């Protein structure tokens, strides 16, 4: 049984995994690119080794180098986190071949589920309903895809065969635009996964994206930890997740039915360790298998908050050949959890990525608040990796309490140095459709706008005007070098801090 783990990832998820290992008394090994020398995962790990230059292909995607480091430093297991090498069957196989435990499923399961087309065929055989789309192997050429498209019908989705997280994904409304969209989708897929293959899938409109967390051990036990509501997305990127789903809420019969199907889908590929079955659910509560993510999910914390299960620790126990500590009967969803993905994206400028050094930050704390992050004041947000700064997770006895708690946490959260999407989440928390649980996967893009959201609120332009004026006035005074003497004590340090700013 291993007790030294190499974490083949960066950012918040590397930190999350290091913490789990720490708390299990295991030694941890971080790997990092030249852009991440100051990353928290490097600081928190027992050992850290340089992979190479900043670009992923020269660092976090260098499976050969990662395995070489693991062997050299005596790590006996590798946790891939999510993204990068997490769903690469060949990497998992390479680990096993050199005697390293891979903290994740068998290569065969990754392969089976990793190719979405094969995945759909497999689970369909197991009697699980799937969304209409291209059957057979996923490596169809543009001509084939263009010819089969009308049979599936529009609108439809182009999705990356190796994909996930919306990378290389496109919506097609008419055959005319499909050719150029195929082109850009393949390009993005190539850039993201080094694999430009794509496939087609019917777009179920007004659909919700609801996924089930699966845990399976090597002793044949397979359970689900209930659902996560993931319908709030922008450009197929999840922005907010919650558990339970307000759409299922207390319909336990539906939860168990979907959960059992999810378990069956996992069993269809002899699944082991943690995984997630994604469903599309239409308004009549019909649900279709969408895909299986054969890895830890970004949004796993909401499930941890309501079930009390530490999913990462359970992954490690399973990889060590232990039995799961839970059976289906132990799993109850207690209260309500919501996660907001805090991204370095300018909510007021078309969500353009924002880079730079975080000069100051104030985290929300207190009861029922959890933050998972890999950044801190002084850390540089680089353009090389995704824009996730942190995950803000809250728990409440009810959904209402969770929303109120998230509101105060978002208002408390201060990040200086980069623009973030915190204002987007604040407006979302105030939107009546969100509060009512009335949304589908298109809601954010089609029925939600920052402007409209903000009109709803009682605006305070006069306060903003006063603040802007005071700042401008202060600046003018500084420029004029007016440093008043004999200030009252209370405002002395005010002048001092201005003076400090002048020195910067």
């Amino acid at each position, binding site marked *: 049984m291993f007790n030294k783990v190499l974490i083949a990832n960066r950012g918040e998820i590397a930190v999350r995994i290091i913490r789990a290992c720490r708390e299990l008394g295991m030694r941890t090994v971080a790997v990092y690119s030249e852009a991440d020398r100051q990353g928290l995962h490097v600081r928190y790990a027992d050992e850290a080794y340089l992979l190479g230059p900043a670009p992923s292909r020269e660092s976090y995607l260098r499976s050969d180098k990662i395995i070489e480091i693991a062997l050299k430093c005596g790590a006996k297991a590798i946790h891939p986190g999510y993204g990068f090498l997490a769903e690469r069957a060949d990497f998992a196989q390479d680990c096993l071949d050199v005697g390293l435990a891979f903290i994740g499923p068998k290569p065969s399961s990754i392969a089976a589920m990793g190719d979405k087309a094969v995945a759909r065929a497999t689970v369909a055989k197991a009697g699980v309903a799937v969304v209409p789309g291209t059957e057979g192997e996923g490596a169809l050429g543009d001509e084939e895809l263009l010819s089969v498209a009308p049979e599936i019908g529009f609108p439809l989705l182009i999705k990356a065969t190796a994909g996930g997280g919306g990378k290389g994904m496109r919506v097609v409304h008419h055959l005319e635009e499909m050719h150029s969209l195929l082109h850009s989708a393949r390009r993005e897929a190539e850039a993201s996964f080094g694999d430009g293959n794509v496939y087609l899938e019917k777009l179920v409109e007004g659909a919700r994206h609801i996924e089930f967390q699966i845990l399976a051990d090597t002793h044949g036990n397979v359970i689900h930890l209930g659902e996560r509501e993931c319908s709030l997305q922008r450009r197929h990127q999840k922005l907010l997740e919650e558990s339970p789903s307000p759409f299922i809420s207390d319909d336990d019969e539906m939860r168990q039915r979907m959960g059992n199907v999810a378990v069956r889908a996992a069993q269809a590929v002899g699944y082991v360790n943690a995984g997630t079955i994604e469903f599309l659910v239409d308004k009549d509560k019909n649900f279709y298998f969408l895909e299986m993510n054969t890895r830890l999910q970004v949004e796993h914390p909401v499930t941890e908050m309501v079930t009390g299960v530490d999913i990462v620790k359970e992954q490690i126990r399973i990889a060590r050949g232990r039995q799961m500590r839970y059976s289906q009967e132990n799993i109850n969803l207690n209260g309500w959890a919501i996660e907001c993905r805090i991204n370095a994206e300018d909510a007021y400028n078309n969500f353009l*990525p924002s880079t730079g050094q975080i000069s100051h930050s104030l985290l929300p704390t207190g009861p029922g608040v959890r933050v998972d992050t890999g950044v801190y004041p002084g850390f540089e947000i680089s353009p090389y990796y995704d824009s996730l700064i942190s995950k803000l997770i809250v728990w409440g006895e009810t959904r209402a309490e969770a929303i109120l708690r998230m509101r105060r946490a978002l208002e408390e959260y201060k990040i200086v140095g980069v623009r973030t999407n915190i204002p987007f989440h604040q407006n979302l928390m105030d939107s009546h459709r969100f509060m009512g649980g009335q949304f589908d996967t298109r809601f954010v893009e089609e029925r939600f706008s920052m402007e409209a959201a903000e009109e709803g609120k009682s605006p305070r332009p006069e306060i903003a005007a*006063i603040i802007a*004026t005071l700042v401008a006035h202060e600046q003018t005074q500084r420029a004029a070098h007016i440093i008043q003497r004999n200030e009252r004590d209370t405002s002395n340090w005010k002048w001092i*801090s201005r003076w400090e700013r002048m020195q910067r």
Partner: protein
Amino acid sequence: MKYVTTIGEREYIIEIVDERHIILDGTPFEVDFDSVSGQPVYSLLLDGQSYESFVYSSEDGWEVLLHGTLYPASVEDEREKRLRAAAGGNIAEAGEFYLRAPMPGLVISILVDEGQSVEKGDVLVILESMKMQNELKSPRPGTIARMRVKAGDSVEQKQTLLSVV
């Protein structure tokens, strides 16, 4: 010191009497205003009401982020205002617009040619950063000039890509 501050359509006349007192459109208020840890985060106590906001300086003035709402504001003292009135109209509006890279990245493609005329909102350039493809649009109608980059170039933040006249 008297200022004229504009947010949206509305103009506010704000006089700063001293460290502790202002007059907003004729109504006096007690203020206690302070930056937090020397950061562009400000705490305002206005007759006891507590507000906290980010303040960013922008091309045409300031942006105040207050309770999840962004207020673009322009602040002028009376002298400036008279000057601008004399000059007549907003020069920026009439002048040449330079499209600058909002962040470092790779130019994926350029959808316009020099001399081509564009409408407000037309996509000019696709820039890839953080694995996302971002569309850079024209803020106003005009004609494309000074093409400074080509597809495949990697660009620095704020680097000029092209201009619209």
